[in-house]
């Protein structure tokens, strides 16, 4: 390219980028830089920040609650991502065989919790899990599964499980829509050819369909991972991280440190660590999608 052309392209390129860059640099990159900078300070309400180097980070890895929160976050991601993928793939494989209106009816129903919004969904779940007149205790008792009311959200053993369950119901809607359409796009000629050759259904799935829906699966993996990491409303509204920190996630613990303990620098350090973890994960997923 000629010099003049490069100049022209650069000028016009940046002019086109300008509105976006204002928002992106102003409300994502600038705060991120601020976040990294303050993570090296002891920063609290209404007092000048004190530089403490890596102090916050050193403390972070000795903080039992932080490590617990990290563990809980990882559990949420590890459980919900595969379950969402497998469940939605299975549901879609059944749905796409059905007639059009029926298929879209079910698709709609599974998408309902997504559009209803996490807060509205959460408040009704809170009621259903209620220790004293929740519907789960009623059903459990009537079916003879439990003999005493269980305090679902107030019991260390169950609380995280309940959170994950709710998260699942709000997460599968989009993957189902995606898979149904991905399965619909599978090259039917190939499938028929394989069937003529006497391939079993399982073989057809693995050999023919799976390679074609793999890109969709990768996309679903990425969005579900991001979603699971961001799970905040559920925890803030249902358990506030309790009982006994058993549902603390890093997201909630950052908020907790900032607005209950006034430890801004410390909270920011956590944010940086989390950002690094997520960046590494996305890099791996990105690599995986490139290698195909």
């Amino acid at each position, binding site marked *: 390219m000629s010099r003049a052309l490069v100049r022209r392209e*650069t000028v*016009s*390129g940046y002019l*086109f*980028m300008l*509105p*976006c860059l204002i*928002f*992106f640099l*102003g*409300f*994502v990159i600038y*705060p991120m830089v*601020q*976040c990294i900078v*303050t993570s090296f300070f002891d920063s609290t309400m209404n007092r000048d920040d004190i530089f403490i180097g890596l102090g916050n980070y050193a403390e972070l890895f000795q903080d039992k609650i932080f490590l617990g929160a990290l563990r809980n976050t990882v559990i949420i991601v590890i459980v919900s991502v595969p379950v969402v993928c497998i469940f939605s793939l299975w*549901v879609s494989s059944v749905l796409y*065989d059905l007639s059009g209106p029926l298929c*879209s009816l*079910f698709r709609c129903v*599974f*998408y*309902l*919790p*997504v*559009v*209803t*919004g996490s*807060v*509205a*969904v959460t*408040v009704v779940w809170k*009621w*259903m899990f*209620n220790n004293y*007149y929740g*519907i789960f205790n009623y059903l459990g008792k009537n079916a003879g599964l439990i003999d005493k009311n269980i305090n679902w959200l107030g019991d260390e053993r169950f609380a995280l499980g309940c959170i994950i369950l709710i998260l699942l*119901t709000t997460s599968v809607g989009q993957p189902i*829509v*995606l898979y149904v*359409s991905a399965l619909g796009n599978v090259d039917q000629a190939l499938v028929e050819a394989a069937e003529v050759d006497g391939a079993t259904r399982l073989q057809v799935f693995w050999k023919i369909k799976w390679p074609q829906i793999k*890109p*969709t699966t990768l996309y*679903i993996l990425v969005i579900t991972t*991001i979603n699971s*990491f*961001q799970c*905040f409303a559920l925890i803030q*509204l249902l358990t506030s991280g309790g009982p006994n920190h058993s549902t603390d996630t890093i*997201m909630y613990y*950052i*908020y907790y440190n900032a*607005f209950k303990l006034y430890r801004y620098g410390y*909270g920011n350090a956590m*944010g940086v660590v989390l*950002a690094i973890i*997520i*960046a590494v*994960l*996305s890099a791996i997923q990105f690599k995986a999608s490139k290698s195909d």
Partner: protein
Amino acid sequence: MKINRHSCYKVIAILIIVIMAIAFAFPLYWIITGSFKTAKAINATTPQWWPSEWVLDNYQKLFSRQSAPLWELKIPLIKAAFRGPKVPAALRWLVNTVFMAVASMLLTCATSAMAGYALAKKRFIGRTVVFSLIVCAMALPKQVILIPLIREMSSLHMYNTIWAVILPIVGWPFGVFLIKQFSEGIPGEMLEAARIDGASEWKTFSTIALPMLKPGIGALAIFTFINSWNDYFMQLIMLSSTENLTISLGIAKLQAENSIDFGLIMAGAAVAAVPIIIVFIIFQKYFTKGITMGAVKG
């Protein structure tokens, strides 16, 4: 024999899916019926599956709680404001939420369309740097930057305004990434031809690229709308006065204040959920199309 086994599996599978579907629809059903139940029916230890008595008490309570002007248009610099008539605060929250979702949708689509096009089709210096920055930032959860963001909004005098929620949503670069993927499909020859014909950069973009990007922008619009409607975190930390709340935040506050008045909370949840569900059902086709579009290109 083989066919039999297969259809047997199919029947069972559909049965399971029907049960799951009921479970998925149940919270919504429970919200709507619950909002019409009496306090006694709601707190009954034996759940009332269908309200024995339909009452509007909960809605009455919800709408008589607090009031706020239906809209408020603030004009910067001269400190003037235009206010709508006084209505129940819950309605104002709906207005705020719609405004927030629509404004972030429009702004995101506009900025992303331009930027995504430029990233895909312009060979400018620093392109790779900008693009890698965008990819890195995409997965970044917003909670990570909450503290600096509050301080920034405060110094811009935007804390406790709806803009404090909108701007970070617009800044989030997923849209740019998406549109860039779509723009790769625009044939370079067409742009080149337009340039040779003497069309300006803007004209090339608006008459040739934009029409081809329409499906992508549609997908992005739906995506942003749902996301910002459901975003709770930014609203929680950025908004504080009753008249600036969004509907999600309003319901969350309602719950904190009247923790076990489930009737009232359900009425609030119904007000929050029903409008968006109606929108969803009307535009269902576009929603599903939009979501799939995003995935295919993303």
